[in-house]
């Protein structure tokens, strides 16, 4: 009566059936840190009410969602955040939390354990406290985040350290890897510092230098790559530029629904329509789903195509064209070509159905 599967199976099925199987929910934009690279232009929104989130979780169950990522801002700045988690778990939704960890007490961690929270992802920007605190602009934040990682691990909760690399911390990668190993935690690096969600590109000055980036792209632990290209240019009619438009989903603290927190084209608001109706019937989402590789004329004729991990959201945000070249992706592709490696993020330039 049952069959054991991989997570990829259900995300592929959701892609075929157009189901938002995994949704990221920003429960607030308030935060107790002031990270220099933060993509949020404001930190005022306190999010929807607990009752509204309870209704949202009802809608998620109806829409076929299984995995929910709860984030902020810093979600634990909400006094009722544990109640939000409790409600999600009462709906039998699988919960992952993105947090800086600084507000996690022993009592909260015990509660997370009881609630079977799947994973907690904690931002840690350096193994050197001063560098981390310089990035968060909060003295003592490194020690608090580190303490949370240790406590969560002791409690048996899976922890993943998240580290966006910038010129201030790129030279600390090896120390961070060692620290993560010592902490028995997984670590995930990202090599792109994005502009702010409102298009303010001041954060771009924080990006790694060319030499730092080259070193980063060479390191398979930091930037997943392969030595063979995935050549989707054979099927431009059936290839989509990022499959998150089919099975992803993101909701901001006002209830606005996006296909992804990076591609901030709003399909509707959950306070006006159900998530399922927005996801399935929003005209803008349907248009996004109809985009194929053949529509990206610059990409299909670009020598760098096979080296490129283009994000449609960043192409729109930073270069102003959903169908055009993403400068940051192109710069990375130039370096990958020099190094001789190819990106292997499977959701990028993915086939529509297999």
């Amino acid at each position, binding site marked *: *009566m*049952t*069959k*054991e*599967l*991989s*997570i990829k*199976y*259900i995300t592929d*099925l*959701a892609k075929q*059936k157009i*189901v938002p*199987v995994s949704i990221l929910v920003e429960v607030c934009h308030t935060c107790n840190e002031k990270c220099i690279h933060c993509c949020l232009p404001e930190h005022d929104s306190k999010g929807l009410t607990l009752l509204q989130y309870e209704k949202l979780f009802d809608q998620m*169950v109806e829409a*076929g*969602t*299984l*995995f929910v990522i709860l984030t902020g801002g810093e979600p634990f700045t909400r006094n009722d955040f544990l109640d939000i988690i409790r409600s999600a*778990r009462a709906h*039998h*939704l*699988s919960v992952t939390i993105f947090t800086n960890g600084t507000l996690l007490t022993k009592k909260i961690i015990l509660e997370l354990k*009881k*609630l*079977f*929270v*799947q994973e907690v992802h904690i931002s840690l920007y350096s193994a050197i406290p001063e560098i981390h605190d310089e990035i968060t602009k909060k003295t003592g934040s490194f020690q608090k985040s580190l303490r949370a990682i240790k406590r969560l691990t002791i409690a048996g909760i899976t922890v993943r350290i998240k580290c966006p690399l910038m010129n201030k911390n790129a030279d600390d990668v090896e120390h961070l890897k060692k620290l993560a190993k010592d902490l028995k935690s997984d670590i995930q690096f990202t090599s792109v510092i994005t502009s702010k969600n409102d298009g303010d590109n001041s954060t771009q000055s924080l990006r790694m230098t060319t030499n730092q980036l080259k070193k980063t792209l060479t390191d398979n632990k930091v930037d997943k790559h392969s030595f063979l290209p995935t050549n989707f240019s054979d099927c431009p009619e059936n290839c989509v530029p990022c499959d998150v438009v089919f099975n992803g989903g993101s909701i901001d603290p006002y209830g606005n629904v996006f296909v992804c927190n990076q591609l901030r084209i709003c399909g509707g608001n959950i306070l006006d329509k159900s998530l399922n109706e927005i996801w399935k019937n929003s005209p803008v989402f349907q248009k996004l789903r109809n985009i194929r590789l053949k529509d990206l004329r610059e990409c299909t004729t670009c020598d760098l195509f096979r080296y490129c991990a283009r994000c449609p959201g960043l192409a729109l945000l930073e270069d102003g064209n959903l169908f055009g070249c993403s400068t940051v992706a192109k710069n990375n592709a130039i370096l990958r070509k020099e190094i001789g490696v190819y990106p292997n993020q499977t959701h990028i330039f993915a086939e529509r159905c297999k």
Partner: protein
Amino acid sequence: MNNHCFKKNKRVSTNTIDGISFVYMEDTKELLELDEVASFIWRQIDGNKMVSEIIANCINCFKGDSNEIETSVSNFFNTLISEKLIKIQENKND
């Protein structure tokens, strides 16, 4: 067992896509796909319906000998209990 109500265990995350239920076990990180009949039963395990009601619903919805269906459903419940995917609803107000 037929007069008991069962509820899904707290360790379980679940939802249904296109009539097929998926069950994710948070502690072991295993993902299961239930077949059509198992999904039908699984969706009715809500802490309110007795096993006998679920058996009756299965007999109404699926072709076959009613005794065999009852045995199959009971076996499935035993599997769910042994795999710690469900537990008895002690108090309906829980």
